[in-house]
């Protein structure tokens, strides 16, 4: 999965970095923590290529509340305990400590037969139903922008039990009313962005919580499809001291920030 920008690699350029907020509310930390909180012990959890935030989130969850989380990657090491975090999330660093090897084929099959609990996926465009586009901007045959391609998404989104989308840029070119191409659609459970967490209810993305310091107006104007942000919409809890300590231990080099421009 990729969060590569459609043009020029200026990822996260629109991401807010609120000043004066408590430690740990920078977007990368907020996202990693919010994503980790969605994972449960015992679940099989997969991410693909170009997925530093899911990597950090899965390792964070396993260190904290989900010790029996089964961490699966394209590198194929099952339950790896990396000594350093790579920027490439297919890196052999993700084999360290693994006691068994699987292939990407094995992992797609796992999902296909309904045994993958969580897949992390992303989209260059994401619509109000949580569908995504990683294929093209413009006409599919002669596109304005050829995107990297959907990787695992078209196969995993309908078959993984829960799909968690993440995207480090939250603006109205990403969260769009209408996709240029539907690369994948399916079992989206949550969408985590630098501004908020969406949940999918009755087939539509709704704002579940707004990150500290993000205004309703900022969120609405950054989102290309209609959303409701009520006064009662909760604020995403800031990272706890335990979460921040665990993050420091897992990701001292702040690889989680590598997806941001």
């Amino acid at each position: 999965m990729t969060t590569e920008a459609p043009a020029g690699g200026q990822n996260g350029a629109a991401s807010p970095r609120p000043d004066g907020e408590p430690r740990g509310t920078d977007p990368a930390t907020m996202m990693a923590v919010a994503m980790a909180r969605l994972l449960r012990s015992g679940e099989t959890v997969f991410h693909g290529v170009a997925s530093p935030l899911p990597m950090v989130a899965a390792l964070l969850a396993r260190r904290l509340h989900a010790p029996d989380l089964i961490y699966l990657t394209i590198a194929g090491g099952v339950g790896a305990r990396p000594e350093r975090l790579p920027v490439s999330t297919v890196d052999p660093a993700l084999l360290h400590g693994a006691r068994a090897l699987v292939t990407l084929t094995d992992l797609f099959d796992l999902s296909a037969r309904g045994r993958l609990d969580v897949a992390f996926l992303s989209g260059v465009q994401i619509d109000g139903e949580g569908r995504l586009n990683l294929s093209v901007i413009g006409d599919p045959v002669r596109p304005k922008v050829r995107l990297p391609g959907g990787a695992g998404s078209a196969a995993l989104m309908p078959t993984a039990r829960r799909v968690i989308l993440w995207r480090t840029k939250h603006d109205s070119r990403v969260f769009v009313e209408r996709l240029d191409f539907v690369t994948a659609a399916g079992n989206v459970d949550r969408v985590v962005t630098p501004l908020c967490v969406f949940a999918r209810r009755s087939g539509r993305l709704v704002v579940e919580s707004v990150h500290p310091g993000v205004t309703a107006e900022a969120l609405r104007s950054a989102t290309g499809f209609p959303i409701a942000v009520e006064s009662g919409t909760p604020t995403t809890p800031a990272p706890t001291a335990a979460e921040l300590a665990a993050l420091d231990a897992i990701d001292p080099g702040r690889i989680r920030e590598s997806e941001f421009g």
Partner: protein
Amino acid sequence: MQDKRTTLAEAIAAIPDGARLALGGNTLHRGPSAAVHELVRQVKRGLEVVKTAGAYDVDLLCGTGCAASVAAGFVGFETAFGMAPSYRRAVEGGAVEAKEHACYTVIAGLRAAVQGVPFMPVAGLGGSDLPAVRGFRRLADPYGAGEVVVVPPLVPDMAILHVQEADAEGNARIVGSRFEDVLMAQAARRVIVTAERVVDGACFEAAPETVAVPAFLVAAVVEAPRGAWPCGCAGCYDYDAEYLAAYVAASRDDESFRRFVAEHVLGLAGTPRPAPGNGAVAAVGAPRR
């Protein structure tokens, strides 16, 4: 025992223009880059490149005019280096056809080839535009009520795999991630193995489980130290971040790309850059450099 060792130049010379090539490895890891450089040097044309997730290999073949089409689930340099610039430009300009795929439909096509069947059913894909744009058909389940997308066989004329160790006969040992290399070796009509080291195959007898591809599937063996470079090769060397960054930067326009290729690919003449470390195969997953 057949000795299948040959030079990279000879192995690649056997690939005709228009061939369908499956390339082993994944994104920045264990791609058969030395062989790709040789494809560029031999000015191949009209290639169809098959890969689940490609980066430098696919991009370079697109930028140098070798590739006419790409069947891949993903083409990009991951987070550190971004989009694949020449692939993008070639597809957007119409020079290269991007055959839309999920990694799993590439795998399904290879599986159909491996199993000698006319199609392979694939779970998922519901709601995606992919089956429609690729012309993948749906078949009714003759044993039940549903239907399923079926993918036609994807038979590579040649699979090119870069591995850590091979013997002269073609037994190929992969250290760490195997990616789709084994499937590609089985699906392809012929297989070229490039290896960091050609070793005495007797050393495989103690651990045949580590040999990913048996010799009888392999047509040619080429010793190619640092043959994945600038990709990484598990246990041997990391990907070359500096080179890849320079490659992506040089790809901003045709002129600088051409200069970069002339210097770094055409000028290489089969000689990879000197290794920053030694070439021994170390434990995988250990910290490097």
